[in-house]
């Protein structure tokens, strides 16, 4: 296991280096300059600003400078969006709210989704099943901004249960955005668990469990559930990344100072180091989550217990 993780870490490092390189050159190909109102500056003024951020150097030099900085954990400084602030600090300060609503949304969505899916599978082709399918379809097809607005209107404005927007009241502020974010994982989990449970419930070892005298709930929870989880984990991993790293739309609607909102703004103002930093941050996150998912597979399914090569 340790050997496997070591091997994976090396691959992760290579993947990251490739992503950083690719993003770096893509950014350089993009037209426009990160220096605000560049047109109004005289060539001399411009040269001074460019020298300050190392933009006057030849491209290969800039590239290696950046990569060496990365090795030291230095993501550079913001050029215009946060005027000279350290990129790492910017990302970390913005990550908090995103991670909180993301985590709450994931947790709520997955737990409810699994529950819905299980019930639907166990009561296949009854109204419970159809009801859960309808919830799943709604969750997948209604965009989160429609859902978010509805939550704001009913729970925020009409019944005044939660703040409509802004990040001021701690947990209370996080409730509505979390629910809005939970819809998609809920729908996905419900669909996956239902399909997989139905398949697992039809397998021979479930018949054997029944032949042993196991009751309906023992069969569902002791025998079927764990076997039905595997495909869900595959999709939940990457989905967790996209949700934890901030849903742009939901953050925008609820006016939450999250990382998604900041990322989009940095693209609009062409803040090179922030874009690079955030991209790399997202990549690290995704790669780590994928590693965790792979390890989880082994925990759930002994047939895919991992080992570094042959045992």
């Amino acid at each position, binding site marked *: 296991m340790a050997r496997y993780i070591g091997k994976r870490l090396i691959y992760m490092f290579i993947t990251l280096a490739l992503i950083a390189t690719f993003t770096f050159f893509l950014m350089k190909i993009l037209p426009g300059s990160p220096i605000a109102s560049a047109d109004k500056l005289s060539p001399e003024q411009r040269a001074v600003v460019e020298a300050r951020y190392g933009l006057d150097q030849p491209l290969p030099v800039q590239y290696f400078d950046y990569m060496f900085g990365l090795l030291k954990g230095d993501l550079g400084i913001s050029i215009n969006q946060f005027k000279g602030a350290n990129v790492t600090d910017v990302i970390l300060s913005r990550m908090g709210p995103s991670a909180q609503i993301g985590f709450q949304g994931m947790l709520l969505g997955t737990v409810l989704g699994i529950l819905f899916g299980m019930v639907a599978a166990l009561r296949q082709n009854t109204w419970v099943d159809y009801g859960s399918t309808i919830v799943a379809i709604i969750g997948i097809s209604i965009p989160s901004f429609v859902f978010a607005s509805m939550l704001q209107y009913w729970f925020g404005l009409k019944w005044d249960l939660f703040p409509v927007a802004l990040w001021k009241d701690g947990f209370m502020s996080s409730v509505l955005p979390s629910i809005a974010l939970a819809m998609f994982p809920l729908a996905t989990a419900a669909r996956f668990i239902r399909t997989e449970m139905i398949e697992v419930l039809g397998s021979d*070892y479930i*018949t*054997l469990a*029944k032949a*042993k*005298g196991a009751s309906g709930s023992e069969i569902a929870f002791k*025998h079927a559930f764990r076997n039905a989880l595997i495909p869900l984990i595959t999709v939940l991993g990457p989905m967790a990344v996209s949700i934890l790293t901030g849903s742009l739309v939901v953050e925008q609607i609820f006016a939450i100072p999250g990382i998604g909102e900041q990322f989009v703004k940095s693209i609009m103002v062409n803040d090179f180091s922030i874009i690079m930093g955030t991209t790399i941050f997202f990549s690290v996150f995704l790669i780590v989550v994928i590693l965790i998912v792979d390890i989880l597979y082994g925990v759930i399914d*002994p047939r895919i217990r991992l080992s570094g090569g042959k045992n």
Partner: protein
Amino acid sequence: MEKILQVKDLELSFHTYGGEVKAIRGVNFDLYKGETLAIVGESGSGKSVTTKSIMRLLPEESAEFKNGEILFGGRDLTKLSDKEMQKIRGKDISMIFQDPMTSLNPTMPVGRQITEPILKHQNINKDEAKKLAIDLLRLVGMPKPELRMKQYPHQFSGGQRQRIVIAIALACNPQILIADEPTTALDVTIQAQILELMKDLQKKIDTSIIFITHDLGVVANVADRVAVMYGGKIVEIGTVDEIFYNPQHPYTWGLLSSMPSMDAEDAKLYAIPGTPPDLLNPPKGDAFALRSEYAMKIDMEQPPPFFKVSDTHMAATWLLHPEAPAVEPPEMVIERMKKFPGSRYYEGSAN
């Protein structure tokens, strides 16, 4: 001998989109204490459905008992609630399935799979159950049972997995063990080992076995009595010797003729012509009539009743009717009948 299970006039249908499939159309048999009853027949003849209906393992929403009863311990199993059945399954009646590769839960250590029915049906604690499970593994011939308790099914071979399934089935010393083609998915050398093991264990725990198979070689090896099923009915039932050496039903003749034989090396292996009947619209008369060269007019019109051949031997064919013309069974069957005292071709003992 003591009857442990009685199946009487059992009729069962499946409700499908195409209509009502009459999978079992009046099955009668008794199971005696300590015996092995083999049920043979081709795919779709109803042998698995019959045994699954005894265990009530058929999907409740599509399978329906139309008639008859299954008497076990003074109770009719067709009428019990699922709760009551749970107390019988795995304790009084247990089952071994065809494919050991898929019949164990892949994400549960085998030890837990064996202790599950023990903890469920016997009033003992976890440590004692574990000890019992280790003993069971040793009983079914698993080396290093303590070590293997923690392992998962994929760490065992097919034969070993079937041994585990047998250990699970025997965990509570059941009165009836239903083995649904337990050796079909195993290779021949392992088959022999598993059969030996089952015979051995049957003596040790004194259980009755219902053994489903389509392999007549296996039947000759394990069974005391044989029931031949065709088209959802038993067409002939008797002791092994009676079925093998004095068969009466044309379908049994066909089955025996299609067995590869050591003597007939150059002959082409016989196959019964045609296909099994469509149980969505079962034939009016003898279900085998359309495939039988011995069919008479009445076979198309009326289902044959059981005719008694001996106290232990019955066959449902109009050929046994006093007014039926005498027919010659296939040559290969006559050869067999020559060895059976009481058959009309008996030639006396060979020496």
